[in-house]
């Protein structure tokens, strides 16, 4: 698929019409979405009108923006004017249509991008599988019998399947990083508080992030740059200037101190996850291993905060409409409602301790490498897998390596790496707070070396 930035350059130069890009995109979605089930709404009329406006702007000599004519889609917990914001649920279908696009959608469109639809997701984002009881599972573009990963499953499926070059998702415990790993694409979970979450349906306010998926690092960075900037409508969005990174991607990685996360972050990892990690480490000439202190406890604390905040968010719906939930989600939320409050308060306090320890670690290293998922994509419907030699339920445990990182909001880029089983797997590049640039520069170096890349989907053989 043509990268987003190549599309934008061609549209801006007048050598390609945005209208033609959108027509081809809508045609591909029409043909392949019945296989992938990535989209829950396709906005053909809106996209065509927007494309014509961009083509007129180009003809008039106006600058159409760095993402001119680039089709994108958003996880259906992000507001789209005129649509109810489903957040993967049945219950939210009764909500009134959103009165405006979410700020991130507005910012991407201000940069010239064109929204083409809303994407499937795990119900209320409490999911790592990409399965959905109401809309059906989004499917892995490299093997449609397998999971896309969740909860931003449609985002992973749509970008991995090359239906769109760019998508947005959310990540509370790994919901960008897991689908990026399973679907073989690049994903960015920025620093907590970097990108506004206004106009998105929440899950766990303490941990929720929004971020982009793309098939190249440059596309990821250009989209991220277009979305930066303070927004008082999100109370956790931090008032700091935008720090654009796209121009820095090829400034080199000399002098960056990178280490591999050992211990917890390798225990239980499959051969494919460890091989990918080692491949990335070797390409970056990294041999030092560091221990992230108390990672298991960080994961447990993230789990406790997630299940209890999620339960509180949905308590009224659990009382009033329990049978309209996905049963897997409902039963986890009910359990979450019963966790003692002392554990929640202690988990929040532990974040402070853990952040202080991680900041100390980042005095010695500039980035840390870790697997994104313990294994390649499991089969859709698979309930258990083996982790650390123990049979474990899939749904709560796919995020074992992502949860301790989002727990304190660190920025992470997932890079996709091919494996010997024909499915991709992701490696996390974890950077200090507000240093997305470091993770993106390392990702770009890996892409330039050919180590990290988005494989072509296996859909039209």
């Amino acid at each position, binding site marked *: 698929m043509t990268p987003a930035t190549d599309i934008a350059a061609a549209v801006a130069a007048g050598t390609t019409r945005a209208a033609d890009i959108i027509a081809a995109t809508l045609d591909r979605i029409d043909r392949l979405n019945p296989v992938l089930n990535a989209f829950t709404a396709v906005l053909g009329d809106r996209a065509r009108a927007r494309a014509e406006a961009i083509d007129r702007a180009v003809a008039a000599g106006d600058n159409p923006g760095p993402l001119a004519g680039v089709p994108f889609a958003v996880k259906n917990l992000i507001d789209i004017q005129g649509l109810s914001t489903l957040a993967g649920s049945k219950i939210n279908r009764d909500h009134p249509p959103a009165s405006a696009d979410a700020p991130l959608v507005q910012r991407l469109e201000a940069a010239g991008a064109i929204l083409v639809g809303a994407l499937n997701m795990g119900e209320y984002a409490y999911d790592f599988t990409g399965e959905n009881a109401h809309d059906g599972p989004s499917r892995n573009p490299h093997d449609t019998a397998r999971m896309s990963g969740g909860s931003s499953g449609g985002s992973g499926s749509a970008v991995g399947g090359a239906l769109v070059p760019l998508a947005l998702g959310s990540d509370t415990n790994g919901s960008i990083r897991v689908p990026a790993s399973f679907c073989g694409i690049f994903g960015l979970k920025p620093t907590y508080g970097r990108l506004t979450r206004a106009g998105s349906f929440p899950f766990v306010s303490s941990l929720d992030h929004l971020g982009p998926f793309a098939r190249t690092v440059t596309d990821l960075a250009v989209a991220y740059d277009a979305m930066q900037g303070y927004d008082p409508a999100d109370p956790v969005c931090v008032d700091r200037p935008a720090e654009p990174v796209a121009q820095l991607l090829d400034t080199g990685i000399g002098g960056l101190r990178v280490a591999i996360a050992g211990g917890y972050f390798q225990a239980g990892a499959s051969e494919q996850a460890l091989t990918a990690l080692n491949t990335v480490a070797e390409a970056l000439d990294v041999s030092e291993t560091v221990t992230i202190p*108390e990672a298991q406890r960080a994961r*447990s604390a993230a789990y406790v905060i997630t299940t209890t905040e999620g339960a509180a968010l949905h308590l009224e719906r659990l009382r009033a409409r329990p049978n309209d939930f996905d049963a897997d989600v409902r039963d986890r939320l*009910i359990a979450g*409602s019963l966790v003692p409050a002392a554990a929640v308060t202690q988990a929040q306090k532990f974040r402070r*301790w853990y952040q202080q320890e991680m900041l100390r670690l980042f005095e010695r290293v500039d980035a840390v490498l870790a697997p994104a998922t313990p294994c390649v994509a499991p089969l859709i419907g698979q309930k258990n897998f083996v982790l650390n030699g123990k049979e474990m339920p899939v749904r709560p445990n796919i995020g074992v390596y992502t949860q301790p990182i989002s727990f304190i909001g660190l920025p992470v880029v997932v890079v996709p790496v091919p494996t010997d089983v024909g499915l991709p797997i992701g490696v996390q590049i974890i950077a200090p707070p507000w240093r997305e640039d470091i993770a993106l520069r390392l990702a770009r170096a890996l892409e330039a070396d050919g180590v990290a890349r988005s494989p072509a989907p296996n859909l039209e053989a």
Partner: protein
Amino acid sequence: MTDTEFDALIDAGTAALGIEMQPEWRDAVRMHLAISLGHAQTVLDEPLADDLDPAPVFRA
């Protein structure tokens, strides 16, 4: 905790919260509660300083 103790917590807790627990949900809720309380115990096992402040900041 035994299954009986889990079930007592499920019954009392859902009653207090106004959730009408259904029999067919019980096995899954018990399984997830066991996982969640395991994580809660892991958190509570770590002694933390009294003055360790989670430090949410409220701006004007």
